[in-house]
Every structure is written in structure tokens, then in C-alpha cells.
């Protein structure tokens, strides 16, 4: 049986122009591995949006990273001040990974 270890999965929904802020915050927290996922649209308290815009100002991206518990803590800590002002959504959950050393 392949050995897996638990890690923390963090997903941040963030406006495309602000992605590099999140990447920078992650780097400060020691998180250098991540993957960006596209979105199509959505709705929330501030109304609905969809990505078929000429202006990319409202396109959103999901920043996905898997990290060890302490790095994950540090990343959440680093992002929390941005959540409200930048309108981010942050989800975390537990995943099991193979090759735990990577994360």
C-alpha cells in the first residue's frame, strides 16, 4: 500500500489582477508550490459576475496550494488581512498526499 501523509489544502478565490499579491503572501509564508485554476463566474453578496468581459477586472482565479500544517497556518495568517478588503474567499481542508516531502 502506498504511504500517504495528511497535509492542508488551501484554496483562495481571488480576482485575477490580485493573484500576484496572493503569490507574494504565500512566498512570505514559505509556500512556493501552487497551481492556479480558472473560473467561469459566480455570485455572492456583491452580485453576480461572469468572465466573458473585455475588461479582465472581474475575472477570478483559484489559487490552490497544498502545504504542511505550519506553513498553512502562516499562509492563512498572511492572507487574513486581505480577505475583507480584497474580497477573497479562503477554504481549507485536509488531504492525503503521496510524496509528503514535497509539500
Amino acid at each position, binding site marked *: 500500500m502506498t504511504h500517504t501523509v495528511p497535509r492542508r489544502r488551501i484554496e483562495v478565490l481571488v*480576482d485575477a489582477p490580485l493573484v500576484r499579491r496572493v503569490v507574494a503572501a504565500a512566498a512570505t509564508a514559505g509556500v512556493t508550490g501552487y497551481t492556479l485554476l480558472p473560473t467561469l463566474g459566480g455570485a455572492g453578496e456583491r452580485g453576480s459576475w461572469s468572465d466573458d468581459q*473585455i475588461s479582465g477586472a472581474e475575472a477570478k482565479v483559484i489559487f490552490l496550494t497544498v502545504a504542511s500544517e505550519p506553513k498553512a497556518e502562516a499562509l492563512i495568517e498572511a492572507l487574513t488581512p486581505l480577505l475583507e*478588503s480584497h474580497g477573497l474567499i479562503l477554504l481549507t481542508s485536509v488531504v492525503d498526499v503521496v510524496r509528503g516531502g514535497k509539500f
Partner: protein
Amino acid sequence: MSGLETLLSPVILFFVLGAAAAFARSDLAIPEAIAKGMSLYLMAAIGLKGGVEVSASGFTVDMLAAALAGIVLSFLLPLPAFFALTRFGRLDPVNAGAVAAHYGSVSVVTFVTGVEVLGAGGMPPAGYMVAVLALMETPSIIVGLMLARRGRKGDTQPTRDLLHETLLNGSVVLLIGSFLIGLIAGKKGFAPIAPVFDAGFRGVLCLFLLDMGLIAARRLREARALTARLASLAVLLPVVNGVVGVLLGAFVGLDAGSAAALGILAASASYIAVPAAMRLALPEADPGLYLAMSLAVTFPFNITAGIPLYTLLAVKVAT
């Protein structure tokens, strides 16, 4: 070309078709990648054509006058706009600053449509107006941010980032770069690529305006933040700015076509460079608000009513 003829040209009719389809809740949609591709094409084409024209006409005093007038407009127009948006529009300073920046900056497609209309009416603006367009994109962003900051919780602004983002915004780079390429290539160098960048121009503009109609109308339908006061400002601001632009253009000695084009630039509101900069520099400002005003109200107004209006005024006041 009369006002009615302008309104009935395919370019404008495709915009109307798009808006009608969106209001009727049709599922007609143009893929985002295609729309972005057309937008880049239009910028490259307008830049090239402007450069080629300037390479033929050479640099003139007019050109300098127009450039200065444009820069001054982009710096100053956000000020009365900010005043109106906070007082009459009841916006907080952050949102008012963000919106004001949009109205000081320019919309490439409004300009392009205006050039088409002016050309069809026998008064094409000078080629250097494309350079003026590029110069007007960014100054208002700085002014808008300074206005907004007075109402901000004072967190440290990464100004270098922002200046970089603004000055090297993709649309600015593409416009100026294509302008320079046109300048270097001249008529002769442009000839082999003219089938794409000249002959294809209006057809692509039709399809692009179809998409703009869809986008503007969908945005208007879903705009929650748009109060009646703000909607009326989104019509009032372009009219005032457009008139100021035409008058300033005539005052500095531009021909009627170029003065009209300066009016169109002043009247137009950005929906590419400025929203991207605002998202970065003022994330607390509501994009639903500034995009609704610039894209869903001011853009359609300019395309259908504003352009003929500023043109008419330019014919009256400019030589």
C-alpha cells in the same frame, strides 16, 4: 453622413443587435478569447494606421498641441468628476476616486468607432490622435488614486507596482508599439499587411461591437450598485467632458475632425486599463460600480448619441 445614416451603419447596428439580444436574455455569447483577440487586433490596427499617417505627414506643431491638450485633460477631468460623484452621486471617496479615474481616461473602442464615423462623414481626424489616445490612458489613474486615498484607511500603497502596471498596461504598450511600427514601416511597409489591418478593420469592429452590446446590456441589467443619480452622472459626465474636449481642441487649433476626436476621447471612459489598475490599487472599490457606469451607460451613450453630438459641435467651432 447624417446622424441617422451613422446610426444605421452596420457598425452601430451590430452594437444595437448585441444590446437587444442581451436585454431579451438570448444566450448569444462571443467566446472571451475571441473578444480579447479582436480587442488586441483593433488596438494594433489603429496604432499602425496612426503611425503610417504620421510617417506621411511628419511631425507638426498641431501634434504637440493635441498631445499636451490630451494630457492636461486626463489630469484635470477627474477633479470635477470626483466632486460631482461625491456630492451629487453620494459616493464615498474611494469609489468616487475610482470612478473619476475612469472618466479622465479613454476608451479605445469609443475612439475607434468615432474615427470610423468621422471618416465616413468626410472629416477624418489626424493620424497622431492615436498617440494622444495612448497618452490619455494613464494620467487620470494617478489623479483618481490621489483623490481616493484621502478617504482610505492608509495602508501602504505599493506605488512602484502600480505605476509599472499602469504605464506598461498591455493596451498602452500595444497602442504605442504599433504606432511606432507604423511610423517606421510607413506606407510602403504597411502595404503587405494592409489586407488584415486595413481592409479587415470595419468588419472586425462590427463583431466586436456586437460583443460590446451584449456585455454592456448584461451589465446594465445586473447592475445593483447603479442608482438613478449615478446613472445620470454616467450620461452627464461624458457630455460635459466631450464639450470641454472639443472646445479645447478647437482652441489649440486642431482641425474639426481632430477636435471632434479629442472630444470623443475626453467623453469616453476607460473599461480596460483603468479597471485593471483599480482592482490592484483600490481593491475596496466596487468593480460592479465603475464598470456599470463606464461600460453599461457611458459607452452605449457615446456610441449612439455622444459621437454625433461632439462631431456636430466640432463642425461648429473648429475650422
